[in-house]
């Protein structure tokens, strides 16, 4: 049997569809280089969404990752990060998060200090840039705001109780609640990917927003597992916030 094969003529072939491959394509396209990228599912499918630079050095947490880079340079001159100029790292970070922002997945701009992002367990993790959808959570913690954490029937591996139990020492104004996700009320297993996609549909957002509003009480903000959209998270996030009337993360 003959089967046609297609040939693509490009200037650059990027092999690998992880973060590095993706970034390579982005930077190439910016320079007007015609490229094709190949690869299959890899680690990127499991990523957290945070962009770390340097969170700790020799078992010490770092507030200032840039200063940390200096220390890294002296302790580990061969570390990949020791081989790149700081200015270049900064530019690359900015360009990359800029691209994502243009795609509807906004990121906070890499600053001078690490952010202490919230993990699903309610602990903190130093990182440099987080999706905008998570940003209000970081701010709420810094203020010690009164925040409600919601989890969902059937969603495994995220427990609002756990978040609160671990977070409450430094953030006493936390409380937990459990909701049923629209059309996933049976209590059977639900997947975050499916919830996130469902929220891309306006009517599902409205129904979830009603349920969130019903439990809001006097909380200033609500935190949830990472289910606010997947293709257009910025849009989903903004719409949900508009419907509920308080910051969400």
């Amino acid at each position, binding site marked *: 049997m003959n089967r046609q094969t297609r040939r693509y003529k490009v200037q650059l072939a990027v092999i690998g569809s992880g973060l590095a491959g993706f970034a390579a394509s982005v930077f190439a396209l910016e320079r007007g280089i015609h490229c094709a990228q190949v690869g299959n599912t890899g680690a990127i499918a499991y990523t957290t969404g945070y962009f770390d630079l340097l*969170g700790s050095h020799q078992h010490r947490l770092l507030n200032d990752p840039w200063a940390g880079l200096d220390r890294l340079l002296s302790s580990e001159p061969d570390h990949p990060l020791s081989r790149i100029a700081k200015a270049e790292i900064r530019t690359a970070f900015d360009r990359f998060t800029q691209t994502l922002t243009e795609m509807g997945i906004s990121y906070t701009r890499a600053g001078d200090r690490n952010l202490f992002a919230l993990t699903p367990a309610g*602990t903190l*993790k130093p990182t440099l840039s987080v999706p905008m959808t998570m940003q209000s959570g970081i701010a709420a913690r810094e203020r010690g705001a009164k925040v409600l954490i919601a989890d969902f029937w*059937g969603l*495994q591996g*995220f427990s609002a109780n*756990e978040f609160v*139990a671990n977070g409450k020492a430094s953030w006493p104004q936390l409380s937990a609640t459990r909701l049923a996700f629209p059309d996933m009320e049976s209590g059977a297993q639900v997947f975050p990917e499916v919830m996130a996609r469902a929220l891309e549909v306006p009517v599902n957002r409205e129904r979830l927003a009603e349920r969130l509003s019903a439990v809001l009480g006097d909380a200033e903000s609500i935190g949830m597992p990472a289910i606010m959209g997947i293709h257009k998270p910025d849009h989903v996030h903004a719409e949900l916030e508009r419907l509920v009337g308080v910051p969400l993360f």
Partner: protein
Amino acid sequence: MNTQETNGVETFETDVLIIGGGVTGTGVMRDLALRGIHCLLIDRRDLNAGASGGNHGLLHSGGRYASQDAETAAECRQEGDILRRIAAECIDDCGGLFVAVEGDDPEFAEAFSGHCKAAGIQCTSLSPMEAREREPMLSERVFAAYAVTDATIDPFRITLGNVNHAQQLTRSLFLPHTEVERFEIENGVISSAWCRDMRTGARRRILARQVVNAAGAWAMQVAQLAGCSEVRLLYSKGTLIISNTRIGQGVINHLRRPGDGDILVPGGTVSLLGTTSDNIESLDDIRPTVAEVERVLNEGRAMVPCLEKTRFIRAFSGVRPLLLASGSGADGRAVSRGFTLFDHQDQGLENFATVTGGKLTTFRLMAEKTGDLVARRLGNTQPCRTATESLPSGDAIRWTEPGFAPRDWYKRNDPQDMILCECEMVPQSAIDSIVESAPGAEQQMTLQAIGVRSRVGKGSCQGSFCSIRVTSHLYDRGVYDSSQGLLHMRDFLSARFKGVQPVLWGEQMPQMELSEALHCSLMGLDQLESQSDAPDGIGDPEST
């Protein structure tokens, strides 16, 4: 039993204190309880934290010892028959083969069936073709093969069953993470045992009429606490590796003088290959090494070449206590060449006994002999009943059997009963029953303790996913209510990783990369303030 607290020291009273929660210690517990005697069992870590949780799980037909030690061989055969009757649920009667491959001593192989016959062990000669029909992945280079009645036994189920039954019979009690530190001896009698709670540091005092030292490889140390120097042990470390899936139908033994990597034993849904045998000086920090794993693999490949490409998920090590000299005194003589029971009469102690050595296969017999001694000393005339009385099952002790949880879950057909461990398919309901009523269940039960009582963390992901899910579930149930839960999770993962490290190649590599991403990048576990309760580095409860 009375417990009371004075000056912050909890005091327990019992007929018999048993030290060591392995198959032997728990066997003694059940044996005595069947005679109506109350026992208190303690372990410095948990059930099966020693050799009982670090072995092949092979119920020896006796074939292995037939050529050198006919007595042990016969003992294995007899005990095997008894266990098949009283603990059928814990046994997979899968049969076994002894095979010799090119390069092995043909004379040794030739003599095998004669030796078996002499020890009364059933043994059928097979052609290499017939052997390969039974086990298709056997090497083409097999030149001699015999079928024997090897089986496998789940030591966790046995231990849990023993404790569970003793609790039911005489309300006997098991205290985990309780280490004996000191004995008070008055007039040739141990009047109390002083212990420390390894988690909280709290001190405990135990008043017992009799004390049994079943501390396995640690038996020498415990005996020395009572001033008994005649228990002299040599430590032999053995390392095994676990494959991701079951490799053969039955047990495959290398037909030659015992050496490294010469037994491949199925364990439900996985297989275990081992073991090495190296004398070591100290019991601290027992962990498998890359070199040991390589040795085991190299040898194993001679029998089963596909081991070359097999995915291994973990290695683990156990320590066999070897008796240096037999005991003394009328009752203290070696009961058999496999194990030894010391009555310590010579040392002037009336209420102390040590039992160590032996095999998993012969634990019941060890317990019987010990039980006879202790009962007699207590003036109890009840006979031993463990050879006839079946080991009862129970709700909270069924979860160590591979494949049981998923079958049970599938049958119950409850969509809300979520699977928490996907590799081994352990549902929420199993975890709930363990936390509520498994032997050793307590407030804030650790993931490690749950792992000992179930298949959680035993699959290919080695706890990557289930640790997160089970922890979340326990927070949900209110079992955990502080950051302690996360620390338990981290300890559990570190313990698992110790075993994964030496087999990190091939397919287990991406698995662990993923695990690191989850636990460090996502959960930030590497940044948790360390408040680990892990004492020294002794082997964590391991299981297949």
